[in-house]
């Protein structure tokens, strides 16, 4: 083995699970957002839902929640990946690698992963939307007007989310290289992980919060529409 790029390639081949996990999470997020955007912006569906009506607002609200959820999911997967990579980064730094050297290698890897997974997610989002719509037609209602059409703007939304995923990976990747502390890596195994007791009330508290969340969700329209007149 002659150079740093080969080292990285070999380490990548031995850590396919971690790379696969991050790539899979990015792909799944973009796929989900693309297929939802295709449905949401489809003229077929917009013709059914009246403009300015509650149903359009609900669709938009769910879409916003989906975007937030997918964003958090992707960022969490990325943070797990970079935590895994931090040991390698720390060892390289301890042996005299420069942070710029490591950053260059990592950015190259992240570019391939992000662009590949986002492109695949965006391309497959449309067919997924079509497939789900066909199931709906088979199972619920099927008329002439139900043929799904697509609006090009939905791919604008997919592109924007893909850009967010790519930029987030680059920022987190860069930060992980710049902030990796050699001393922390060297002394990692000397630290003992504190074990916290899980109190019994956590379980009952979780069940209570589930019930409360359901109840609040049920009465929220009443509060916002009749009370606050939104």
């Amino acid at each position, binding site marked *: 083995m002659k150079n740093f790029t080969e080292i990285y390639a070999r*380490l990548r*081949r031995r850590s396919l699970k971690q790379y696969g996990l991050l790539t899979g999470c990015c792909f799944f997020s973009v796929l989900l957002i693309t297929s939802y955007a295709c449905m949401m912006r489809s003229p077929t569906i917009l013709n059914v839902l009246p403009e300015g009506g509650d149903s359009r607002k609900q669709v938009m609200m769910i879409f916003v929640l989906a975007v937030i959820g997918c964003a958090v999911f992707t960022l969490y997967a990325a943070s797990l990946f970079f935590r895994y990579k931090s040991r390698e980064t720390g*060892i390289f730094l301890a042996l*005299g690698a420069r*942070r710029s050297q490591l950053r260059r290698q990592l950015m190259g890897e992240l570019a391939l992963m992000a662009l590949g997974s986002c492109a695949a997610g965006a391309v497959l989002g449309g067919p997924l939307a079509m497939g789900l719509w066909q199931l709906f037609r088979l199972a619920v209602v099927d008329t002439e007007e139900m043929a799904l059409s697509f609006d090009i703007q939905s791919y604008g939304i997919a592109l924007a989310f893909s850009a967010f995923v790519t930029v987030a990976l680059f920022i987190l990747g860069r930060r992980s290289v710049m902030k990796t502390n*050699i001393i922390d*890596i*060297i002394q990692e195994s000397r630290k003992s992980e504190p074990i916290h007791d899980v109190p019994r009330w956590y379980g009952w508290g979780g069940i209570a919060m589930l019930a409360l969340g359901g109840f609040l969700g049920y009465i929220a329209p009443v509060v916002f529409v009749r009370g606050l007149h939104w």
Partner: protein
Amino acid sequence: MLKVNDLHKSYQVGKTTYEVLKGVSFEIKKGEFVAVMGPSGSGKTTLLNCISCYIPADRGSIMLGKTELASLSQEQLATVRNKELGFVFQDFLLLDGLSVRDNILLPAIIGGSVDPDTERRADELCRIFGISDIREKYPAEISGGEKQRTAVARALINRPMMILADEPTGNLDSKSSRAVIDSFLQARQAMGATIFMVTHDSFAASFCDRAIILRDGQVWRSLERGDMDRTAFQDTLLDSVREMGRE
């Protein structure tokens, strides 16, 4: 080879400043095998981390050869770590995804200087430390002693000015510890290596030419082995530790 002069280092935790090194000074000559000992909190690891260029000192100087480490930039310090220093860690710090041979070559690859000569040197180091048979194995497949000998070979691949070892026998049984100390002695004999080792282990320290004992961030005593045999030097070290405990 290494000259440390009036080194100070403190840490800030909240509003409290803890002074860990309070004016440490010593010199290490080429080819010496020196141990640094002392109780927990005496500043041994902080001293090693300053010399390793992992953390900057607050005051004082560290001269490695003719280079003053405090005057170097981060990129220059990285070059010093790669070319002039070799590291042996308590936890081996081998990369699990690379074979033993690739781990040994790693500092040379990082420095961009792998040629047929380097690869021959890696094979020679494997032969010297008795790890030729496991060259193509991965760290998960070898014992602790073999991992540490791999780490010693890695530390020597770039022919550094000095090897810095942080509790190299800390995670090993007595037989493996002895094998690692023998590796250091072979490195000194065969390659003229200069070794600076932080250790709690008086047995490991008894093989050294000199032991510097730190207490409360200062050099409390420096013991030369001279003509003493190993057992007598170990007894001297233990007597010093006992004396320190009584004060």
